[in-house]
């Protein structure tokens, strides 16, 4: 009896083994000691091997019940500690609950009520309650007497009262009704989910693969199958269709299984053509391909495909949908459009070319107007695809955007003719014919490749009698034109940049490239002409195609602004709101302000050039300059990516130890920007059409606010910003809202806690309720996340206040 014989496997041998093991264990309870330990261990092992308590048969259950009862009644010393609890926790849950409650009710030498309570607590916490409910739901259990179920039910419901009665109020918190019933509710829900899953799994998991096989070559089975799905009652049609679409390995299979269901059944049509495409967006691309491929496979269904495409396009081109629906859904719709296009044939497209064109124009307009780059790109890809399919010859629409995985995936949807849609009985000889026709083309091309190079005319035969013949030249192929030297003085640069002589293109290029370093090396000379230079740079247009022109110009602008912050910031902020600038220029201004502010507030940014003197004391103060550098880099990156999760405690300490040059100029950067946003100009309306610029402005303000930490103006800035945010909080553009939420984050991080409380409590309370709303209701995922972050920041603030005794 030393080692438990491992049961050889499920079946008769197991039953016998478990049964005899249980008998032995029951007998062993009386004898206690080593033998009982071994017997219980053997029972547990056998039970686990059999697959848990559900595998127990009628007789074994009875024996298990007896074992548990004997255990419960046995004196405490006779029960091997740890092992008996396991028996209770692993046994059939219904049985266990009955025995435990019996033990609780009976006074005697057996289990102490407190021990019972501990086991019960574990029983509840390990989710045995849902196991119990699941057990009751099993078919064999339902066959058992209803009376037993009734008892169990009442026991489950009365458990808290029961326990607290016995323990005289010293029951663990799990048994408090406010804790227990939610637990019970959870268990019920889990069981319900499990039931529904297993039902669906069972039916469709068996049905679909089998039907797939059967319908492959048998038209009778096909008819049966069609009949089957057509007769599904309307209420369940959706679940059935969805299940078939998800499970079918390809569109052709789906077509075999469903037949023309969508044409015959209104409900199925609604599910396929509306619900799955326009209302839901969680399905995978494969499901979409199945679905649309299915629609395309039969001439009876193709009109529906065309209609689906029109519906999709209507959604795609609706500006309100673009504005308000989540990006994932728009991606989904775009995919569906592209798949539709890949299935449509020339004449079909021709029949609705005008409509396609109209909605494409509409859609492009509102997608390009969106401030989210992903949506813009989506619009471009879809528009290109539509254009190329409605317009096979002639000029093709081509946008400039960077390819990424998403666009490549989208494009592959269009190009690919889904292989599983191809009727498998495609005549093979047809294919080889085509290949044969293509073959002879190849050799023809090679013929004229070897045109003889004309023999060089003896041009050089002109005898050079009096020549330098004895002097053999060296290789001079390296003698190329030298890159033109850039001007050495700032004023020269101005002259070059403002000059309009066309022959100076090279010089102009060299100047643009050299300007930043020139400005940084000559701060004094720059200050003399800073505003003039800023003006020139702001208006500088790309004359020739220089690589990285925009970046070069921007770096020069930043250098000028950093060198002479106050007048240049005044100039730039005033220009932001003045007439006759393009949106691009206005956004350039914002970018430059942000980058310069960032540089001013972090002296290490350009440590090599001019701050080397300043830097030294910093290093002494900060022994771990490397780690702080890393930290700074991370913050920069985060600011750029516009997500903010800051380790607030540390950031303050480290920033404080560097001289913040932004301190004295923060106001010049910030306040002029915030002043005029609500005054539309004839060419520039921030609150109207130009919401992209507004979004950038808001993000800029957020970054400036963040960088203004520890500056004198920070509180005033915070107040102004809060009002600004409040005025714009219901803006329709999600990019703007994201910016506003970033503003709040920066504010909470930058403004000292005591100032926040003293000066803007009420505003903050209002903001808090707004944040709550955003977190719950905003259609944009990023907005929701930012709002949540803000609320957490506020929470932290509160905690910090409580921690510090005032």
């Amino acid at each position, binding site marked *: 009896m030393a080692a438990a014989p491992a049961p050889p496997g499920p079946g008769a041998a197991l039953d016998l083994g478990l049964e005899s093991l249980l008998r032995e264990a029951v007998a062993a309870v009386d004898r206690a000691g080593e033998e009982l330990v071994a017997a219980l261990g053997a029972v547990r092992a056998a039970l686990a091997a059999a697959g848990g308590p559900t595998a127990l048969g009628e007789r074994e259950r009875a024996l298990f019940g007896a074992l548990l009862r004997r255990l419960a009644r046995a004196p405490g010393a006779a029960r091997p500690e740890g092992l008996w609890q396991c028996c209770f926790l692993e046994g059939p849950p219904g049985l266990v609950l009955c025995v435990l409650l019996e033990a609780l009710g009976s006074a005697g030498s057996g289990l102490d009520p407190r021990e019972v309570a501990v086991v019960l607590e574990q029983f509840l916490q390990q989710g045995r309650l849902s196991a119990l409910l699941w057990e009751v739901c099993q078919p064999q259990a339902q066959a058992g007497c209803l009376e037993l179920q009734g008892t169990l039910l009442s026991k489950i419901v009365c458990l808290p009262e029961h326990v607290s009665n016995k323990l005289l109020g010293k029951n663990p918190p799990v048994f408090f009704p406010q804790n227990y019933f939610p637990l019970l509710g959870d268990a019920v829900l889990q069981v319900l989910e499990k039931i529904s899953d297993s039902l669906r799994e069972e039916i469709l998991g068996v049905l679909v693969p089998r039907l797939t096989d059967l319908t492959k070559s048998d038209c009778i089975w096909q008819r049966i199958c069609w009949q089957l799905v057509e007769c599904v009652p309307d209420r369940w049609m959706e679940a059935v269709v969805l299940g078939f679409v998800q499970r079918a390995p390809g569109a052709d299979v789906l077509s075999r299984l469903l037949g023309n269901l969508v044409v015959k059944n209104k409900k199925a049509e609604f599910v396929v053509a509306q619900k799955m495409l326009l209302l839901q967006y969680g399905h995978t691309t494969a499901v979409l391909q199945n679905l649309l491929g299915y629609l395309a496979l039969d001439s009876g269904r193709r009109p529906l495909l065309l209609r689906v495409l029109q519906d999709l396009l209507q959604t795609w081109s609706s500006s309100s949908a673009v504005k308000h629906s989540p990006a994932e859904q728009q991606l989904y719709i775009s995919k569906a459009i592209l798949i539709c296009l890949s299935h449509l044939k020339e004449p079909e497209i021709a029949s609705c070319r005008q409509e396609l064109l109209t909605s494409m124009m509409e859609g492009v307009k509102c997608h390009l107007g969106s401030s989210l780059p992903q949506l813009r790109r989506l619009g471009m890809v879809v528009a290109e695809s539509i254009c190329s399919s409605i317009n096979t010859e002639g000029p093709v629409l081509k946008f400039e955007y960077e390819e990424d995985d998403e666009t490549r995936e989208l494009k592959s949807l269009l190009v690919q003719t889904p292989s599983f849609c191809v009727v498998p009985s495609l005549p093979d000889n047809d294919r080889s014919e085509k290949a044969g026709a293509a073959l002879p083309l190849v050799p023809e091309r090679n013929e004229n490749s070897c045109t003889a190079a004309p023999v060089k005319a003896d041009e050089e035969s002109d005898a050079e009698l009096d020549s*330098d013949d004895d*002097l053999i030249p*060296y290789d*001079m192929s390296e003698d190329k034109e*030298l890159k033109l030297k850039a001007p050495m003085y700032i004023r020269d640069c101005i002259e070059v940049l403002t000059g309009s002589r066309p022959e100076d293109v090279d010089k102009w290029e060299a100047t643009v490239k050299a300007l930043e370093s020139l400005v940084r090396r000559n701060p004094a000379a720059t200050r003399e002409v800073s505003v003039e230079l800023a003006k020139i740079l702001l208006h500088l247009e790309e004359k020739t195609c220089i690589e990285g022109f925009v970046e070069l110009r921007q770096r020069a602008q930043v250098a000028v602004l950093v060198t002479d912050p106050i007048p240049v910031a005044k100039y730039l902020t005033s220009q932001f709101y003045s007439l006759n600038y393009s949106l691009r220029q206005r956004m350039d201004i914002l970018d430059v302000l942000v980058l310069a502010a960032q540089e001013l507030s972090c002296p290490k940014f350009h440590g090599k050039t001019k701050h080397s003197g300043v830097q030294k004391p910093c290093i002494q103060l900060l022994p771990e300059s490397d780690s702080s550098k890393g930290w700074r880099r991370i913050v920069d990156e985060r600011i750029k990516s516009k997500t903010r999760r800051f380790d607030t405690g540390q950031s303050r300490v480290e920033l404080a130890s560097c001289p913040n040059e932004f301190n004295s100029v923060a106001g010049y950067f910030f306040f002029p920007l915030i002043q005029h946003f609500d005054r539309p100009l004839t060419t520039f309306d921030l609150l109207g059409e130009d919401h992209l610029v507004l979004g950038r402005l808001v993000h800029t303000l957020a970054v400036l606010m963040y960088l203004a930490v520890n500056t004198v103006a920070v509180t005033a800035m915070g107040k102004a910003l809060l009002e600004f945010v409040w005025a714009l909080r219901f803006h329709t553009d999600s990019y703007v809202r994201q910016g506003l939420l970033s503003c709040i984050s920066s504010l909470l991080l930058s403004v000292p806690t005591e100032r926040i409380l003293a000066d803007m409590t009420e505003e903050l309370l209002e903001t808090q309720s707004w944040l709550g709303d955003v977190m719950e209701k905003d259609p944009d995922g990023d907005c929701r996340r930012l709002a949540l972050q803000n609320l957490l920041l506020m929470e932290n603030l509160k905690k910090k206040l409580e921690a510090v005794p005032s």
Partner: protein
Amino acid sequence: MALPPPDPQFVLRGTSAAVHTLHFSCGGPDPDIPLLFSGSENGFIHVWNLKTHRVDTALDGHGRKSVCCVKTMGGKDRLLSQGRDQRICLWHLAEGRTSVTDSLFTEHVGFCRCSLLQVAQGRWLMAMAARSLEEVQILELPSKTSVCTLKPEVGAKLGMPMCLKLWQPSCGSQPVLLAGYEDGSVVLWNVSMGKALSRLSCHQEPVMSLDFDSEKARGISGSSEKVLSIWSLNEQQNLQVYKTHELINAGISDITIRPDKKILATAGWDHRIRIFGWKKLKPLAVLDYHTAAAHCVSFSDHSSPRDRLLAAGSRDQRISVWSIYAHT
């Protein structure tokens, strides 16, 4: 496939300023050490020992103002230097002396280098830009007596003289001066008569440097443009454009024809030294070593042709010394 251009024979470093002028003195008999004089922007004249490649002496005579011309007078112990302090100094260097023995105030503020011509043993003529803008003055050295002043005709509008070359058609005949001017023209002056013989407008921009081969009666000039201009002097003492040569990059700061008149070298603003055959102006080599504009080129006066060197000084403060076409 042509050979790649050679690397410098050696490089002299340590002037700690841009090098503006170079002059060899290697023609002495054997125990004499070959020397190279260099004048740099910080006012020093360095005397380089070409055996050790070290500076033997550094002469400071121009008040830390740029030295633009250094010439020996006779042996290597007599030196003439011109600086931007508007002075021309005469040095005695024998027996380790480093003193200025005589000096001359030119009152000229331009960049024009002076030109020296030995007319007899111990007698030299020197041409230099004079105080008034367009004039050139000829002096006799060492007496410093003025021979004549060459004034352009009224209304000629030549601008300042930029470069000068004094030469003698044949021994004993009248010395002649070729002067390149700011307006891009080259003028031939008869020194003894003080009269312009011929004027040739061969450049659009100021003439930066010129050299003349009296045997072939042909000269070459370079400016800030992309063109080298070769001109000839006919029997009627008229200058005519013989040929132009287009360069890859603009700007020539110095041109020197090797004493044997076989090749010539140019120092370019594009950092490069170019070597041409003198007969046909056939491009021979482009020496790309310097990292800033080359200011001057000079050929050595070694008595054995095989030892001949070419030196180039540049704004990058280095002097590169090359051995190129020494055997031909």
